[in-house]
């Protein structure tokens, strides 16, 4: 961690003191960037926390910090990288704040994952998203139903199992299998996409 990072971290550590800096009139372009970045931020945070609920919580806090610091962002630089740095500090802060037992991963692991996630090629992100949507349509109807229900926030896995009249463990297996199918499919789609880029993308 270098010095400037450290400084930033300290500032974000006390949002109350910096609340007066909240821009009354946010720059529409920045708001656009901010909105656009949500999904990618969430994915990044999830990779480091491993739990969707925790990831949401960290994302909320990250968003607050981003909005308060929006005027500090230098236009023309990489907004995504900037936001990810903030998210990184929020992840660390979250980990300090949380009771040890509630954390899923070890410090080493998070450090390792974050550093390589930050280096990931981000240009494919939209393609990946598109590919996933396409792959979802390619699933068998039953599988799509299962995966939709699985990720429906209102349905627990137990309810899902009950709904489908199947034992919970077989649902888990299926979900794992479908997820892996999707992963393979996305990879395949991306490699196709690289060879034959769709015009206008």
């Amino acid at each position: 961690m270098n010095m400037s990072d450290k400084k930033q971290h300290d500032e974000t550590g006390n949002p109350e003191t910096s609340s007066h800096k909240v821009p009354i009139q946010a720059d529409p372009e920045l708001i656009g960037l901010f909105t656009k970045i949500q999904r990618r931020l969430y994915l990044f945070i999830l990779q480091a926390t491993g739990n969707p609920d925790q990831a949401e919580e960290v994302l909320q806090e990250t968003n607050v910090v981003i909005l308060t610091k929006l005027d500090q962002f230098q236009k023309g630089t990489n907004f995504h990288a900037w936001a990810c740095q903030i998210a990184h500090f929020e992840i660390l802060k979250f980990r300090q704040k949380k009771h040890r037992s509630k954390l899923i991963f070890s410090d080493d692991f998070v450090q390792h994952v974050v550093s390589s996630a930050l280096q990931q090629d981000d240009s494919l992100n939209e393609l990946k998203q598109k590919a996933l949507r396409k792959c979802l349509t390619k699933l068998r109807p039953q599988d799509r139903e299962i995966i939709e229900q699985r990720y429906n926030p209102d349905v627990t896995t137990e309810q899902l199992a009950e709904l489908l009249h199947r034992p919970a463990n077989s649902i888990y297996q299926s979900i794992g299998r479908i997820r892996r199918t999707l992963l393979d499919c996305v990879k395949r789609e991306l490699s196709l996409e690289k060879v034959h880029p769709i015009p206008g993308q």
Partner: protein
Amino acid sequence: MDPSSPSQSQSRLRELSSLLDRFCEGALAPEEIQKLETLVIEDACCLQYYLDYMQIHGQLTWDQCQTGERRKLSAMIKGVAHRSTRRVMQTTYRYATSAILVLAVCLGFWTWISENTSHRDQTVVDNQLAEKVSPDFDEQPQLVPGIASHGSTSQQSPDKNEETASTLRPDMLQPAQEPQIAEKTAVFDSSKRHIQDSDNSSTAPVLVSLSDDEIVQKIDYELSEEWAAAELTPTAQADDATWIRRVYMDLWGRIPTVRELNSFVDASDDGKRRQIIHRLVNDMQFGRHYAEGWTNLLVGMQPNRMVHRPQLRNYLANRFNQNPHWDAIVGELIAAEGNPAEDGPSNFLVAHLNNQAVPATAVTARLFLCKQMQCVQCHNHPFNNMTQDEFWQLNSFFKQTRIQQAQSQQLMSPPSMTSASLVPSIPVQLVSLKQGGPTFYESRNELMHVAFPEYAGIKVKEDDQVNRRVELAQILKTNGQRELASAFVNRVWAHFFSYGFVNPIDDLGSHNPPVYPQIFNFVTEQFIASNFDVKRLMTWICRSQLYQLSSLTASDNLDDHPESGTSPLFTRVYLKPMTAEQLYDSCSLLSANYPSDENTFAEYEVSRDTWIRQFSRSSQNDENQETTSLNGTIPQALELINGPLSNSTIRHITREVSKDLDQGRLTADDDVKMISAISRRILSRDPSEKEMQAYRRVLMSVRQSATPKEELLIRNYQQALEDIAWAYLNANEFTLVQ
């Protein structure tokens, strides 16, 4: 071991993916999470896989959270959001909304908000919206019972499922269901460690023997899951004529007779496939067929002056027919002693004890354990974790074994089988000495090493009272049983489907992962639980949904093309070329030389050996390997075009079909009858439209030719029939098993 070797990395990835499956369901124990962390930190491939996997998980969470809320919210957001952001909004309403709410409230109630995140409020709103509007949600009550009524994740959509059901026989194909045995079978799958298992962490597998029906159902179910995962639709079912030819070829090693064909095709019984499998497996021809294949594997085709082939074959045939327990058979082969002309099993080692029993070691490993050990006799294996000492430790088991000159001449073979070179010309005796001593071998740095008999972690004592081969047989039945079983299952699977779960079939190991590990494990474990019952194993395979399928590709499984080097996905039954034995037996059947009862079999098989031997060639290597040229090459073509076997076959077929002809007047009806009869005999099917047209033209021109003499006419007619039979016999279709 080098941690970055490809095989290691693959098995790590597999472990990681199974951990991640359950991790995302919150079903990992702390120590398993630690394992996950270690994998990701230590292996770059695992790290990438983790990132990709979590990205999918995250995207699904993110997107699916909104499916129910999308329409209403998008309308809401439109009003609030800035115009330039509208397009992006489509995918990010939820957080965008909360962000905008945050923005709004930031102005006034900053501190309050940061504690009660607006997100929570939003969720309440979202849920209400979801209940009211979402069409996605409205559909669910209909969809869910639809799935439930199928009771499983069977691989087709409901309507597709019906379609399949109508084309498939109900006896063979109850829709692939997760059978009620799910609970019983759960213990088998070491790869499926569920949440429930984590409660009682005792992982020692308890082998529960299931009934044939349950096993077949389970195989079907697992396979349908695999098909779905690979997004493949299996080919349609094979028609009865194709299927009956296939099952006769696979279980008896010959094509069906016309009577056998007709009685099966004409039967309308739902359970006819099941019945015919039962009948074929329990007939003596079953044992004879498998005995032949295994005799070739065990002692090879090349003449060996000490080996008594027929005796070994008879022994195997009796074992397969009456007492088909593979572990016991292997034990008897390994521990055999005595005179090859009397004790069938002793032939195996008599054939391979040359060259310090190196072939015996390599062949034992290759045939029974499907391990390619021959290279490790000189050096540790470069790709898998086999080491040189393992080879010589196994070799050490044969150290006590000797071939001795037999004492008296009376041990010579019975006179009925004196066909030269097929029976031993040197009478010998396979014996075990009291003392053996260890094996000494040299490693690559020219150091001398010593190896004591040891296999699967069990060391055998150096003692006069210990017969090492008896010990080895025992180890294979106990500690080595899994290897023994998986090797055999893989081999048998490949016998029916051309490809094993692992290919090449005799190269099992962690470096060569199986295609469908779950099915492979399940079948292996059931095979062990059935006491290595060969007949039951084959019954399961023949009754499986897969075995009922056609060999043709359809538009949905074009990718399943192992012939081009990809790994087999088993969505169809791949074409197999006939083996030399199948070809000989089928031709013999067509020319009425096929033996009708067990007593005449032995003699028949000796003449078959003589015929086949002309195509076999020794590779002349240390492992006593051989190759055959009867595999679609020129010698095979020549034999079929104009060999004595095909000539006699063609003549006999013609004689048979034409014997009831009214020589005085040949009609067009006769033409059709003749062509059909020949086609049915040779290809077990009716002639196609095109064939019929072409051959009718040939026969018609003979009939209408201005020949004054009646007998000349009938001779010409028979000549034409022979031509037709020749054409059918030489069609590629004849030498293929579809």
